[in-house]
């Protein structure tokens, strides 16, 4: 296996050295004042300082100096973001589950969620130019899933060194090898990126030799090609392909009896996009984008005693879209877009792995940006999504920026986001033979399936909720974000943000009836109402030209509105220390599970002009509820919590003038382990990496 890396590296080196005859090194897209350009917030290029919505930018240098390999590594160190475990590593944004954040690569959505979670370990960071995180509902531009926010991973063929190779080795035989080749001329910009990631995984759970993170082999390659046909017309192609293989030999011992099983998972993920961009004039430009992606996951579990288990999921998504940007006046700019999506899933959990379940979407959006005076910008946007499988959605959003003076500016955004019912909620057809033979039927076919079972005399009872089953509506969120940016002085920035998201139509599984045997039958209904609210403070202080301090804090309060109503009505009970039931008080309510009240991170950064760098990062997350242990289905102080924890990460390195750079790092220095609640956090891990990049190729 390791031989193949060297082979790829060597081949790539020869291939690229012959390509780079004429090289042009292009710098990061910063304007003269060092202001970053952001595309995700408005779908147009805007300076960070002119945005009306809160955006976080993570640039390539931060990613590299932190020693972050996968998207999860860098997101967990951001204010307001937490990683979740279970069905891969997902990201929770301002208290909202991973289902509610859309993940884009160069503006195109990734698919392949399991139980709503997109495993962010799938995304390698070796060739990333920057990551943009938009907080707050953004469905007015991006449609479904952009309810909590948007994470857009941006690569750019014209950015960075023409050739770089890197290899990193660390604890648990974790190996990561990168090859990045670029060609940049006036006419053509090309980037080819290859990544290999292997790990033996690790076991941190006592009494079990099964590994929490299993041995994984991951390959990823992305290719980007930009062709400037004329100075007004360009073509851009992007491809991305990842392949992942996970194999795990599981042996669970209990009182001397050991059960062996072998799990194997193969995941393939491919994306392909093409866009044609044309500028008619300085005021008018348009682009046509076509995108196709497919995600295949096959899981096989073989147990010595018991039936083999096989789970197949194929998800594909095709989209064609046109976006036109029109500057009607120097103070008024408009964006218009239309598009169509064809989305389908084949899964062994929905009917059969051979039957394709389909949802088609047509949409249109517009956004108007008005700047009546220099100090004030107003943006209004609206998007309409028409769905073939469920109710349509209309997503409005308004946002504004007021620059009081050189030191203070304020942003306010109010928007509605939505998340379409997913295929599982529509089409699941699942009966658990192992535990009580209960069934879960997706709402699109529950009534049909249950009526058929009823005709066969298999249905015992139908609950009132059965008669409430109808086409699922999307889940909606109304979000308000208010931000105050304060430039305290030339060396210090502070940003404070208040946020509140009110969610309605939450789709939850609900019992709709019973079999004649008494086993339960579930389906999905729009029943829940919840909220997340709080504030964030982020700050940065430059001590001198070498040392920088930065940090962030999030205070978060969440709750299920129906549960709160029940507690107020006096129908929720809890237990006292003797085990006797008593009435639960509202002040004992802790909100939604897996949400922490406090999250803090702090970073010390050193960068010398000679190329030395050092950083130390601390991340703290307060306790979060994981389990209900008094059967009241409401989380209170008496329930099971994961304890709060503090993790330290550090990395240091040096970039030499000849293009060589070395880096060493230690993650989780204090070796914090919580096998049950933080399976994605191994104990202390160390790594060493070497990178060689050619900055300039001579003719």
């Amino acid at each position, binding site marked *: 296996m390791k031989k193949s890396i060297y082979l790829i590296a060597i081949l790539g080196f020869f291939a690229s050295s012959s390509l780079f005859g004429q090289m042009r090194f292009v710098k990061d897209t910063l304007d003269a004042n060092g202001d970053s350009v952001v595309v995700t917030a408005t779908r147009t290029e805007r300076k960070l300082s002119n945005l009306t919505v809160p955006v976080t930018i993570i640039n390539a240098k931060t990613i590299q100096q932190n020693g972050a390999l996968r998207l999860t590594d860098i997101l967990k160190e951001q204010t307001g973001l937490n990683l979740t475990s279970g069905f891969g590593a997902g990201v929770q944004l301002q208290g909202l589950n991973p289902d509610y954040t859309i993940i884009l690569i160069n503006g195109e959505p990734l698919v392949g969620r399991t139980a709503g979670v997109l495993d962010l370990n799938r995304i390698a960071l070796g060739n990333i130019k920057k990551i943009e995180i938009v907080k707050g509902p953004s469905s007015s531009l991006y449609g479904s899933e952009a309810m909590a926010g948007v994470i857009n991973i941006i690569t750019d063929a014209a950015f960075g060194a023409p050739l770089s190779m890197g290899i990193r080795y660390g604890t648990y035989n974790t190996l990561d090898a990168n090859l990045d080749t670029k060609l940049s001329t006036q006419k053509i910009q090309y980037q080819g990126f290859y990544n290999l990631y292997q790990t033996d995984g690790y076991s941190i759970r006592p009494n079990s030799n099964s590994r929490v993170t299993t041995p994984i082999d991951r390959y990823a390659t992305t290719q980007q090609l930009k062709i400037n046909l004329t100075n007004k017309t360009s073509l851009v192609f992007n491809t991305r392909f990842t392949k992942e293989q996970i194999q795990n030999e599981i042996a669970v011992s*209990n009182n001397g009896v050991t059960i062996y099983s072998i799990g194997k998972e193969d995941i393939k993920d491919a994306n392909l996009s093409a866009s044609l961009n044309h500028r008619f004039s300085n005021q008018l430009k348009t682009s046509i984008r076509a995108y196709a992606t497919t995600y295949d996951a096959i899981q096989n579990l073989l147990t010595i005693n018991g039936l083999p288990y096989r789970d197949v999921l194929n998800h594909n998504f095709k989209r064609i879209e046109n976006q036109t940007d029109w500057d009607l006046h120097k103070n008024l700019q408009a964006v218009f877009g239309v598009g169509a999506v064809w989305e389908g899933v084949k899964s062994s959990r929905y009917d059969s792995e051979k039957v394709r379940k389909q949802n088609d979407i047509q949409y249109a959006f517009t956004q108007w940006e008005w700047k009546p005076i220099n100090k004030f910008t107003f943006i209004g946007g609206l998007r309409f999504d028409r769905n073939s499988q469920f109710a349509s959605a209309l997503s409005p959003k308004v946002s504004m920026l007021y620059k009081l003076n050189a030191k203070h500016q304020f942003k306010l955004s109010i928007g509605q986001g939505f998340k379409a019912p997913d295929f599982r909620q529509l089409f699941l057809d699942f009966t658990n033979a192992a535990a009580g033979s209960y069934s879960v039927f997706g709402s699109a076919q529950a009534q049909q399936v249950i009526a058929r079972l009823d005709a066969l005399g298999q249905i015992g009872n139908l609950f009132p909720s059965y008669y409430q089953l109808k086409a699922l509506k999307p889940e909606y969120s109304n979000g308000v974000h208010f931000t105050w940016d304060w430039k305290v002085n030339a060396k210090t920035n502070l940003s404070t943000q208040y946020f509140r998201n009110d969610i309605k139509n939450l789709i939850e599984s609900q019992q709709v009836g019973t079999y004649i045997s008494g086993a339960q039958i579930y389906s999905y209904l729009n029943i829940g109402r919840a909220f997340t609210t709080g504030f964030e403070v982020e700050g940065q202080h430059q001590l001198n030209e070498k040392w920088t301090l930065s940090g962030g804090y999030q205070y978060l309060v969440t709750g299920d509105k129906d549960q709160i109503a029940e507690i107020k009505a006096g129908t929720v009970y809890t237990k006292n220390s003797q085990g006797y039931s008593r009435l639960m008080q509202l002040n004992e309510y802790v909100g939604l599970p897996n949400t922490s009240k406090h999250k803090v991170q702090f970073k010390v950064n050193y960068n010398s002009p000679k190329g030395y760098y050092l950083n130390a990062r601390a991340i703290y997350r307060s306790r979060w509820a994981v389990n209900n242990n008094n059967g009241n289905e409401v989380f209170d102080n008496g329930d099971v919590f994961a304890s709060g924890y503090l993790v330290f990460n550090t990395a240091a390195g040096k970039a030499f003038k000849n293009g060589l750079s070395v880096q060493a790092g230690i993650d989780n220095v204090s070796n914090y382990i919580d096998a049950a609640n933080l399976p994605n956090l191994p104990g202390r891990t160390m790594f060493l990496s070497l990178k060689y990049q050619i900055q300039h190729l001579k003719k």
Partner: protein
Amino acid sequence: MKKMVSKIAMVLGVSVTMLACSKDEEVIVVPVTAITVKDLAADTVTGIGADGRPQSANSVTYYSLVDNKVIAAADAATTKWDVAFTSTKILVNSGTSGPGLGGGFVFKGLFDELKTIPNDSTFATDNANASSFAIPWGSGKGWYTYDGLTTLVNPIAGRVLVIRTAAGKYAKIEIINYYKGGTTLPATASDSDKLTKQRYYTFRYAYQPNGTKTF
């Protein structure tokens, strides 16, 4: 089986009961005592099977609420017992379980606040053939929830088991916990403890011998 029985005198507020009644009614207040039964073994685990599931003798522990004692299994087909326990399943002396006048239902509310069984209450009986029991059996259906993650059984807060005894009188039960020692094991307890210390009921009950539905 060792069991400890402690008595908690719980004299119902006489004045409160009197206030609730109209003046011309004669009030007969019978003080009902709440009794706590600790660590009542109910088909405890003897080992683990090749399939990884717990093994046991499939025994049933019969209990008389009237006499506050365990009744021998040999008397299963008599009206000597009122409730019976076998792992998480609770039986009443009726239908497929026994020859008595037993019955029951799960009341949502607090033990102390259930002072009179509502008149419109329906007492169900056991019918093992249809997997239906007066005290519904299964996680989240009757008195407990089973947490697959921690593999622990937790009694649901605010559930009172209202029981009609074999003789047709009334009692109320609150299950306190399911583990030996009288407290539910912590989530971090060893697998071995979770296996061997389960199926020990601690519960409190009040029995009204005068045949009324008032406690």
